[in-house]
């Protein structure tokens, strides 16, 4: 039995019939075709599937699609404006914070949430805020430097 849900993804409204056991991650990737959200573990441990659900970062593999009914979802595909990269995306590109890129979507969304809550985070606060997003390539150094370099961040 499919359930009908209404969700707003990156500002676009969708009415979708979904199986009750479908995860939000699989909905985004396989039903809506937004494959920028990555599947790394399916147990909420790697953070690659992080999206913003009603303003809060969640691991979308642990959220059922039906739980997202009536909610707003922001994925990595929703960050560009008028063909320009979001400043955090630009910082990741410029600072060499991206290697394989598999953690990047979740990492950028975690960083975005942090900077919205706290426009002037310390390095320790940055590290804490991305500690749920695993990266095996970079050692995190250039990711932290990228977040520090985002314009508008004020020094503490």
């Amino acid at each position: 039995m499919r359930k009908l849900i209404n969700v707003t993804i990156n500002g676009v409204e969708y009415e979708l019939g979904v199986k009750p056991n479908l995860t939000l991650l699989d909905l985004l990737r396989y039903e809506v075709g937004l494959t920028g959200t990555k599947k790394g573990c399916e147990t909420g441990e790697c953070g690659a599937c992080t999206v913003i659900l009603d303003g809060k970062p969640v691991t979308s593999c642990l959220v059922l699609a039906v739980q997202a009914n009536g909610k707003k979802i922001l994925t990595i595909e929703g960050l560009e404006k008028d063909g320009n990269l979001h400043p955090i995306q630009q910082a990741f590109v410029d600072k060499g914070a991206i290697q394989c890129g598999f953690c990047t979507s979740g990492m950028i969304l975690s960083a975005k949430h942090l900077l919205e809550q706290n426009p002037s985070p310390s390095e320790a606060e940055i590290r804490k805020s991305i500690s749920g997003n695993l990266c095996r390539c970079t050692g995190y150094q250039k990711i932290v430097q990228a977040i520090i370099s985002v314009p508008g961040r004020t020094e503490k």
Partner: protein
Amino acid sequence: MAKYAIINQRVPKLDAPVKATGRAKFADDLVLPGMLHGAILQSPVAHAKILNIDTGKAKRLPGVKAVVTWQDAGLVKYGVSPARYDETLFCHEKVRYVGDEIAAVAAVDLETAIEALSLIEVDYEELPAVFTIEDAMAEGAPQLHAEFPGNICAEVHQEFGDVEAAFKECDIVRTGKFVSKRQDAAFLEPHCSVANYDFSGHLTLYSSTQVPHYVMRTVAMVLGLPVGKVRVIKPFVGGGFGPKCEATPTDLCASLLSMKTGKPVKVSYTREQVFLHCRARHHYVHELTTGVKKDGTLLALHNKAYLDGGAYTSFGIATVYYAGSLLGGPYRLPNMKYDGYRVYTNKPACGSQRGHGGVIARAAFEQQLDAIAAELGINPVEIRLKNAMQRGDTSCNELFVSSLGLKECIQAVRERSGWDKKKGSLPSGKGIGMACGFFVSGAGYPIYRSETFHSVVVIKVADDGGTVTLQTGSAEIGQGSDTTMAMIAAETLGIKLSDIQVESGDTDLAIDLGAYSSRQTLMTGHATKEAAESVKKQILEVLSDELKIPAREMDIRNGLIVFKTEGVDFREIRTRYMKEHRGWTDHPAESSLTFKEAARLAYLRKGPIIGIGKYKPPKLGGSYKGAAVGTSPAYSASAHVVEVSVDMETGRVSVEKATAAHDCGFAINVTSVEGQMEGSLSMGLGEALFEEVKFDGKGRILNPNFGEYKIPTALDMPPVESIIVESNEPNGPFGAKEVGEGAILATIPAILNAVYDATGILIRELPLTPEKVYWALKGKKPPIR
């Protein structure tokens, strides 16, 4: 003015914007029309005879399109090295580990495929199993492979010089046993393969691989397809670190299922299956006996190694050779003996992982070197400087070092870390440690015996003249190789980076042995440079003929033709170009002749301008058995200093600062070199402090997930200072050699030595969990539970 226009600078990776926006397509992001979903049935028991496989119920499940077992796949044996082909796609008479493949299903969706797996009935007769090196080597132990008695997968015995005689000349000779645990590469993207067999006999396979070429060969061989009819394409890959070097069951199952159904088929691993497939770092036991003179001069080493290989060989033959050969450097060591054994056990197979074979040997040796230095009252820095190899040296096992910035690395970390002030004066619980590394810059020989080129690069100039396409079979897996090749090509050709597009990771483009043994910058880089030089020569020759000026009196820089003499009249070429492009808005307005115009002219005169570059290392190394493993056209060196804090109550170790120096010969992309150094340090830190794949008594993995197999988070990583040392390697393009793997070698021993400095205790077993350190501090062995 900088010597170079493009290279030796910081350049954002070409693929960074598509990755930052979620546009980059990885294998699991691909959807082909009519695509089916596959799943693999794996053994739940570690060692058993297969009495019967009944697929009847699974085949009858609605939505199931194919169920395949060994009867469909055949029994062609494969592996990595032809010297040990010991796997078949599906098990035939018996299973050898929990996870061994038995059957595969293709269905309309993944749910149906998984349900079908549960309907396959397999009757097992369980056999006694072996899970440890000791049990596997014991008299009368259960045998995994009849062809390899005693469960010995591979055995190596080498001696260079005379170790016994040298020990007699030593002032002190010390023996120590060092143990590491099985580790996982823990790349974030699980393996995924999408195969499309088109029924005209062509198979296209999209695979999350590091080496499309090896996958192509294995798939063709196992499934009986002509090699020219298999095309392997690597989409974006979410990290590899070694285990993605070989063809996987996802590749083979997807291909076979596509051939059976005539439809595209996707097969992915779950995270648990990634752990079950493994092919990552072995569990090692090293017993090292090292002899030195009173003044610290190294005279001899006897290295005994036992590797727990798991049920199949994978890269293991190379691994067991590397575990000996890589201790030939970076110190002058005139006598070395190696006895290595790789042993079969009923566990997932281990293979290659970053720093292949050398990482644990290096950790054991560098720790022992510190202990010996302490005993002799020599500073750890001094004992390393004293024995350091230099450019022009040849090791006792015949590895020729054409460049080696080891001393420069040691001096750099000594200075930048404040070593001289800190060593010996830190309070209890705080420690500082250093260690060095040494690694190949590309394997000297391919894994299969062949005189093949290791890399071929094709550079095509667009007939319209404006842009250049670089085609290579090399694999961009996040390390930045596409950008590196584009930079080398742009520099050589004298054009802008933005005028180059890279097509890579496709076996139809050109041969390349791919992203393993830290080889692409040197080898693919050479081929790239040669191809770009050819293009440049062809264009300038035409221009020379047209303008009646010798080619040596002109050059290409920043996309413009530069003449040594002034007042060259190129108006006719420009007029012709303008006439060909009436209505276009990007006419050349420069006061110099542009590359675009010159390239167009060359096309009009000669037809398509294509440059081909190829690379094959010269004959390298000695003539003894196994001499090929460890050979390389160049070797990197590194040195790390790490500062730790050890909680003397709980045994918890925190790494507070790391200073790393790496001799990469010459940095093509400075940002990427640092990225490899920082990433290596992070992987080494995880392996040193907490990474261990654990098994229960029946050979089942206890922690096949990131909740319980811990890799470093941002909170575990200290600030890292990366120092690039450039020794200008004569065999490398522009002097460049490797960084991707060699950078990990010094990390683990530097941490071990810092913990030794902090506590005065040598802990000879990885990982340094709080429990292990706690019991070591108590001077006791942990209680057996």
